[in-house]
């Protein structure tokens, strides 16, 4: 009888330990910082409008399966660019989300773009304090720096563009930009449809000047 009680006690303790281990994993996950997949940006889901909360849930469940959420929460892109990006992700081999879920993810990203990111965006420097070329202005307006870095400033999702003017010829840069403009690149979102030939030329002119690594 006493042995039976002891076993029951041990079982309870074991179950508690096991559950606590699972619970501990869940609790710790809120604060974990990845060595590679850093999740530093925190979204307070309770502060989101009710209709966006469910979209955020889909975004978190689907995108967080393969990479840290910072990968999606950090870059700033236009609605058209996010549409392209979500479609691209939907076509990945193991991204199991349907059109309705893709729409929910896009809804959240657009909401996040219009609210959190617009608040956090640095204000444009005064034209008097910072002289930039038309190509650089276009580069920044399109949010290219969300994914690409120049001189260490910018995102890391795409390759650094420091020294691109030295690594590639003008023709190669022009070919790449035209391919992106035409939506033929599988890894880059297309430029807006309203982009003019002059803007493309300005962008190429700017990239050609980036000769410092």
């Amino acid at each position, binding site marked *: 009888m006493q042995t039976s009680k002891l076993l029951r006690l041990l079982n309870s303790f074991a179950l508690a330990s096991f559950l606590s281990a699972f619970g501990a994993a869940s609790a710790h*996950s809120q604060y974990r910082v990845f060595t590679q997949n850093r999740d530093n940006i925190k979204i307070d889901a309770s502060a989101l409008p009710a209709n966006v909360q469910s979209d955020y849930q889909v975004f978190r469940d689907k995108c967080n399966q393969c990479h840290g959420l910072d990968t999606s929460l950090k870059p700033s892109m236009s609605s058209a660019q996010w549409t392209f990006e979500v479609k691209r992700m939907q076509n990945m081999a193991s991204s199991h989300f349907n059109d309705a879920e893709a729409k929910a993810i896009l809804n959240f990203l657009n909401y996040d773009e219009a609210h959190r990111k617009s608040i956090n965006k640095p204000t444009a420097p005064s034209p008097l304090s910072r002289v930039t070329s038309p190509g650089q202005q276009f580069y920044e307006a399109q949010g290219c720096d969300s994914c690409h870095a120049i001189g260490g400033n910018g995102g890391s999702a795409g390759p650094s563009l420091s020294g691109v003017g030295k690594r590639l010829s003008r023709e190669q840069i022009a070919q790449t930009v035209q391919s992106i403009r035409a939506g033929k690149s599988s890894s880059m979102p297309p430029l807006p449809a309203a982009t003019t030939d002059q803007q493309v030329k300005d962008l190429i002119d700017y990239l050609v000047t980036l000769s410092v690594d």
Partner: protein
Amino acid sequence: MQRERISWIPLVVCFVFVGICSVLVLPRKSEALPQFARRYNLKCTACHTIVPVLNEQGELFQRLGYHLPPALLPGEVPKKLSALPEGADWSLTNNVAVAVADFGYSAERTTQEGAAPSSTSAFQVNSWNNYFAGWLPDTSFFYHAELDIVTGGTTNPDLSNACIGYAGGTVRNSWYIVGGREHLQVAQGTRASQIYSLLPNSPLLFENSSPTNFVFDQSPVGLNVGYTWISSSYKRVFAASAKVTNGDNADGSEILGPSARNSKDFWADIDFWYAPESGITFVDYYGKKDNLAGDGITTFHPAIRRQGIFGNYMLKNKVDFLGGYMHSNDDWLAAAGAPPSKFVANDYYVAVDYYIKQGLAVSGRYDELRQEITGASGVGLHSTHDWTVGVNRALTPSGNVIARVAYSYLSGREPVGAVKSTDKFVQADLSFNF
């Protein structure tokens, strides 16, 4: 058949062990990831359901010579493999995983007719493997080496994979050729046909030694060629591969001494993946190996044949139904001078993996192996049954630390002497992928 009561104490101990270890090892600030996850800045779950079982992306990643399959938009011209971005720069840390380890508690009780029951239990390092894999920078050559320090709780350093390959073609029509030492059945074909599963032991058809001592769990040296066709959006994949090897002994050990005859293996598989995560595989194996006859003294040179069909269907990305059937037909010799006969076996398994949520899965498997030696030396058709259940839980969001508890019950008679035996096995373990 009267089932014996298994003591609760080992279960209690293993639960406590897993609980304490889980709390102790859970990192607060950072966590390590194996080589490919580090290199691509992805989580383990990008390529695995729960490590080490590969998902669709992981399968394709491997078949494309360790290139991540890029998104293919409808109508898009597929890129050449050599044109795909390689991710982060090559570095030692991005190409080496120095400690993929599994340790835990296991308890086993075995009974056999004519012998006293035996029980064993141990806290031990079940496995410790080191991987070195990736591709040569600016080329389409890839390499894969696996050094197993501990296998099955025994320290026995073994280079189970050491090969180099070349992948060519485009994302949608690719091919590879690999030479060197490769595991016979680690990751060929769909998930149901792989030696890896969410449970501690593989299905019997992969792990069981036949009377000819042949097991699939071996790593011969040879040449492997493969072709992969992928539809846009990866909804359908057709793949085929063939392997010719200068084989090991039938039990997987290396042929160290002089052998009067060559040992050769031929392996082919045809695979079709349809819809996400589901697929079907046909496997054919033929080998000729020196072997010991039933008397344990005479050497003979049997042909060993295996044909199998395997399939899995993933329902709503939640419930994975898996099953496999394998037919064995080996030459058999009872003793010197005895008439040649055959060892014939039919083995099937059915399994269900239920992914309750990401990183948490409950699994169950039923396995039945029917074995017979034909002719005068045979003792009739005998069956072995194996039930296994288990729970897997990833303890980190990246999926690189996994706790598992599993129980299996095996019962049956072997085909040479018709001796009945039972085996109960409990294992609670933690695996780490650094």
